[in-house]
């Protein structure tokens, strides 16, 4: 099996033709690389370029699963962040010297008590301040979009499988909450509709009770059923671990965490004794590693069809590491165009090398193999636990995902 796959391994073309899911870690590296790049600049043109790259790659390589539709919600969230940032800046503008800036509009000033000195409510809204807030908000929004892209490209459950064995329990807790959350939404919709059948249109506390009680009872029953199903399918078999092993692992992990905390504190606080710095950090990390390895030994399980790390994964990861490295280096070299001045206001320019570097991340859209798509004629399910208007909800994916041309 290894032999046959190796012969294709270094041929990008072969991988491109065969649909498969890319290793989730590759997508996360890609998204974090772009996020690193975004965090180094406030140039709106570069930031919008990053959003464009994210959008193109997500459209080309996302699958059909419910989480694959998450990107648009993150876009909405990013937009909200920008709007809130600008609104707050306008409201709490702070004192400005109106002779040197452009005043857009002057809001009525609300006098604040003395203890709130330094905060100004209302007053002049300046063009410079608004643009500055816009740039800041945009940067934060783009970081959110990077997160959203990773979430819609990588299957969260598969991503959790790369966790070390000792953290397996944690991963499963996340998996259960991931499965129960959409069901909770469905159950709220179902119960809200059912309330209408009783002619119950009350709002407020009464409505909360009549919705929350059936929904929570339902959610509790579902979680118990899921837990029973997982248990009877062998989840959590402890293998050969003795209570002593478990205690040793626990002590190691707690000691390691304490070391990490102390080390981080020592590094940040210049006045701390030297031993609390790097040495404590390293010792803590070492203890944690030993604990993870020991803990992992007692969890005996195997993995079905682990995602391979092949050429496509390398290309996707590197394609975003490049812009990250270029922008970090550019900041170090003091490239002014990365952070265009807002006071005095200047038009942002397009620095050539960072632009090319960001565009390079779009290579992922071609290098990654196309996602697996199921046949489009999926029979839908109405029966079961959701009453009919719920047959729309019973499939969180809703209508089939449009296939980008």
């Amino acid at each position: 099996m290894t032999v046959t796959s190796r012969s294709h391994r270094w041929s990008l073309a072969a991988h491109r033709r065969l649909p498969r899911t890319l290793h989730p870690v590759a997508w996360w590296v890609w998204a974090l690389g772009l996020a690193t790049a975004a965090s180094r600049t406030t140039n709106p043109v570069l930031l919008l370029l990053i959003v464009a790259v994210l959008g193109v790659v997500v459209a080309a390589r996302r699958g059909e699963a419910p989480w694959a539709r998450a990107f648009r919600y993150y876009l909405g969230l990013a937009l909200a962040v920008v709007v809130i940032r600008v609104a707050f800046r306008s409201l709490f503008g702070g004192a400005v010297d109106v002779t040197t800036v452009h005043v857009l509009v002057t809001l009525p000033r609300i006098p604040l008590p003395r203890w709130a000195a330094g905060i100004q409510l209302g007053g002049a809204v300046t063009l410079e301040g608004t643009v500055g807030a816009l740039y800041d908000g945009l940067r934060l929004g783009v970081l959110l979009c990077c997160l959203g892209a990773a979430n819609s490209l990588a299957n969260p459950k598969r991503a959790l499988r790369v966790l070390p064995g000792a953290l397996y329990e944690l991963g499963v807790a996340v998996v259960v909450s991931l499965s129960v959350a959409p069901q909770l939404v469905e159950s709220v919709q179902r119960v809200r509709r059912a309330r209408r059948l009783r002619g119950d249109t009350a709002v407020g506390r009464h409505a909360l009770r009549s919705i929350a009680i059936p929904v929570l009872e339902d959610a509790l029953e579902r979680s118990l059923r899921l837990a029973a199903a997982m248990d009877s399918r062998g989840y959590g078999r402890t293998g050969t671990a003795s209570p002593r092993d478990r205690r040793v692992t626990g002590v190691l992990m707690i000691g390691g965490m304490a070391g990490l905390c102390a080390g981080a504190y020592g590094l940040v606080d210049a006045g701390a004794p030297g031993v609390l710095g790097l040495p404590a950090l390293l010792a803590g990390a070492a203890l944690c590693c030993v604990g993870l390895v020991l803990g992992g030994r007692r969890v005996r399980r195997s993995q079905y069809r682990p995602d391979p790390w092949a050429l496509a994964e390398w290309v996707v990861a590197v394609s975003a590491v490049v812009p990250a490295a270029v922008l970090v280096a550019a900041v170090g070299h003091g490239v002014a165009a990365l952070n265009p001045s807002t006071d005095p206001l200047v038009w942002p320019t397009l620095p050539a090398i960072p632009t090319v570097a960001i565009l390079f991340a779009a290579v992922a859209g071609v290098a990654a193999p196309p996602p697996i798509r199921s046949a489009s004629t999926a029979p839908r399910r109405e029966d079961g636990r959701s009453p009919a208007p719920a047959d729309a909800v019973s499939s969180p994916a809703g209508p089939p995902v449009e296939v980008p041309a």
Partner: protein
Amino acid sequence: MIEFDRVTVTYPDSDRAVLADVDLTIAEGELALVVGRTGVGKSTLLGAVNGLVPHFTGGTLAGRVVVAGRDTRTHKPRELADVVGVVGQDPLSGFVTDTVEEELAYAMEQLAVPADVMRKRVEETLDLLGIAELRDRPLHQLSGGQQQRVAIGSVMTAHPAVLVLDEPTSALDPTAAEEVLAAVTRLVHDLGVTVLLAEHRLERVVQYADRLIEVREDGSVMVGEPAAMLAACTVAPPVVELGRLAGWDPLPLSVRDARRRAGPLRERITARPVPARRPPTVGGTRRPTLSARGVTVRYGAVTAVRGVDMDLHAGEVLALMGRNGSGKSSLLWALQGSGPRQRGRVDVGGDDPGSLPPAQARALVGLVPQEPADLLYLDTVAQELDQADHESATAGRGSARGLLDRLAPGIADPCHPRDLSEGQRLSLVLAVQLAAAPTVVLLDEPTRGLDYAAKRSLIGIVDRLAAEGRTVVIATHDVEFVAAAADRVVVMGAGDVIADGPTADVVVASPAFAPQVAKILAPLDYLTVDQVRAALGGSAP
């Protein structure tokens, strides 16, 4: 393979044992069917096999349960995962992963099966259960029958010696139920798996069973050959009831057996007039109580109901049938007015319930949803009934209580609605909805989880509603219930009405929907055992 040694199970807040002193041995390769009234310890018996009872559910288990040499006292469910596979009633709630293939592999991953073995077993299981074409599909997109087969496959990949199934076909339409049962019998015959199966709809499974395990109300258990056991069992499918009536010995368990014996019976009743199956409808004016024109329901790109026209008449009981996902529930919700309706008109006495406020709409059309518990949120039955009176402008105080006592006598005021049996909870919600005195009553899948006696009392309730001049519409998969309860049948497929007519004409015309008595006595026009009983008169047997 499975051994119960003087097992007694008691739950903390109950004074009587759910299982009392049960001795039971199930041999390898057997298909044992667990039967009994709703609410007896069937699920407890099944749960005890892999230790979910009492490790997971709580309660006290006295005695010993040994499966493949492992005692459940010392082995938790997870440590029995490689010998016992358990599939619950609602497969969707037990799925851990997202796609069919990953779900099939999940149990093996937990058991640390090597990767190459896993690949092989997944492929074999996909073929064995006939779900190979579904391999990459998201689990929530599958139909009910497909989900049930995937759930069975997901435990079979661990190669357990015992398979435990709790009502695997209760939510399925007849065809999907056939698929699932075919898969189960294949496992028994080809792989020698021991199967323990609980089911209310005996007519579907009793013919495949090697032995019958009847759980009684007092917690005791009777075990025996199906034919011998059913002669005196408290639950029996129509084919067995017919056999009892005709005095056949041994009792037939399948339509085929019964048909081969039915020659003399057919001759005896062939000359007699076919007795009426249903009481005659009242009024006789045939005035429509509800008339719908061009009702269309869409969810995004999916059309659930496609321009349906329908007239409902006073005193009529109509059964709405069709496979899972054919638009039955969507149509009911659209007729009631609470569900979406993109096009079309509904007219109930000059008003459109869809454009009225919910409180007025429910006085025209009452709907009992698939999950009756969604309507209940108070702590006691009395509070729910008071609330129902309060919600209904037309009803006086205490009228909901009166309705409930007529529907299901003996439900005490201080009971918590969650503690009621399925049938009692259905009656409570029905009473709540009837308090508004609707002229049209819609019931969405009311027969799920009901045993034969509970279904008979539901038929009595439906008959009384019809006798009061109301119209009753019942969406259901249960053909035997339809044969006994409905005057008219509408069959839906992909959002269209594909058949509409008197019950006798519609159900007999389709092999999937024909009740057992019709299959046995064809070409005579009998649908229910009661008709045969009436035809034989006092002269039987």
